[in-house]
């Protein structure tokens, strides 16, 4: 396989969910990403078709974690194409056995922790820019979010793809070495510290008197209660609007 095949597989992995379907989920996107590698490995169209059909089975993973699986599968297909046909039976089982845990790691790490943390930092920047009327820096927060987030997620996808491809046998070690749990704990800790700072800054900057502060506190406690009882965010949103109207009617707070 040439470098351009790896680049092509990597770029195609961004379209993993283009044909997301309820029957086999990301199977088309996965086979599409893998196609340049299979074309290089199997010059015989019949064998290539067999290989493609292997990868049109059910498949679902977090989109940022797919490169880990692509790296492993390419390595396995390389071995199959060079004569180790015993792996044809196991390649799909291995792939799907990896997909479940990787999907869970991706959901918890990227969707539920890293992205919210990046949002929070951007919110902090935004509130500071708005509070101190730094109009020239208004685009700073969204630009910070989009640039830093993507440098990290694209970097992760690329590094994990190459690392797993190079050390196929030690895939569990590669994943272990990424130390997701440690990173998760650190980001959560940092997230809490950032949240307290941003919240403190907001309370000081936007509450004008004792009544304001009390209203803020009531809404804050109420939203924690509603969030903990798993009420949908839309309900929290409408409840806050209702409290806004009630608070205005009580004391003309505006």
């Amino acid at each position, binding site marked *: 396989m040439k470098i351009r095949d790896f680049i092509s597989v990597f770029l195609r992995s*961004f*379209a993993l969910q*283009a*044909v*997301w*379907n*309820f*029957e086999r989920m990301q199977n*088309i*996107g996965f*086979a*599409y990403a893998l*196609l340049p590698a299979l074309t290089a490995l199997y010059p015989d169209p019949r064998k290539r*078709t067999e290989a*493609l*059909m292997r990868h*049109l089975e059910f498949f*679902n993973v977090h989109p*940022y974690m797919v490169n880990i699986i692509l790296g492993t599968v390419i390595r396995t297909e390389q071995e199959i194409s060079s004569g180790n046909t015993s792996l044809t039976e196991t390649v799909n089982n291995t792939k799907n056995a990896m997909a479940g845990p990787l999907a869970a790691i991706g*959901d*918890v790490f990227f*969707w*539920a922790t890293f992205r919210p943390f990046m*949002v*929070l930092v*951007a*919110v902090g920047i*935004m*509130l500071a820019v*708005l509070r101190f009327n730094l109009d020239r820096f*208004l685009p700073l*927060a969204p630009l910070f*979010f*989009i640039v830093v987030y*993507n440098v990290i997620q694209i970097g992760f996808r690329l590094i994990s793809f190459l690392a797993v491809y190079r050390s196929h046998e030690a895939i569990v070690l590669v994943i272990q070495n990424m130390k997701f749990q440690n990173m998760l704990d650190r980001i*959560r800790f940092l*997230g*809490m510290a950032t*949240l307290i700072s941003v*919240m403190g800054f907001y309370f000081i900057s936007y509450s004008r008197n004792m009544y304001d502060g009390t209203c*803020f506190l009531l*809404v*804050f406690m*109420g*939203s*924690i209660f509603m*969030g903990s009882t798993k009420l*949908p*965010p*839309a309900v*929290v*949103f*409408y409840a*806050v*609007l209702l409290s*806004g*109207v009630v*608070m205005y*009617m009580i004391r003309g707070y*505006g």
Partner: protein
Amino acid sequence: MEIFYLILLAAIISIDITAYGQFMVSRPIFCAPLFGWLLGDIQTGLWVGMLIELIWVSVIPMGTAVPVDATSIAILTLIWSLSTFPGQKSAVITAMVFAVPASILFRKLDILSRMYNVRVAHWVEEGVLNGEPRRLQYSVYLGILLFFFKALAFYGVLVFLGMGVMRVVFPQLPNAVIAGFTTSWRLLPVAGFGMFLVNFWFGKVLGINK
């Protein structure tokens, strides 16, 4: 004419949600200031992006779940409010009141397109079996186009409908509601912080099918 460009941009940005990339350009924290800036009020865009990100922080796409679409809440809120009653915080909140249920329609369309994709997937499998691997490529292009046109149709209809509703409903709102919504402008981030705390502290992921 400007509205048509905004609808087109909204449809292009929507591709990022699922079909290609997930580079987060569709997240409210980025797309709301972008639309705010295009509509001449980046500050409102920043505020709306912040509100939606904070309050809907726990809604994430896990497994087969198709979550509520935060992108459409942000985009519709900004287009509806800034193109009808610019500079009025209560108009932004009023627009958001209508944008939240509208996002459920976007989710329904998303589910429909994913159901249609089952047929596309069968068509591809059949083609690959018959030695036509190019169908993989065509289906990916088709999938991306489907997401694009779905979003285009959604925004094309909803943007004009919502602007009409805003023009009729907003001036009719009682003063207490208008003032209450202005109050909520500063209360909503506080509620967002509470939701955020629940997400980080309890480590909960609330948002499937909400």
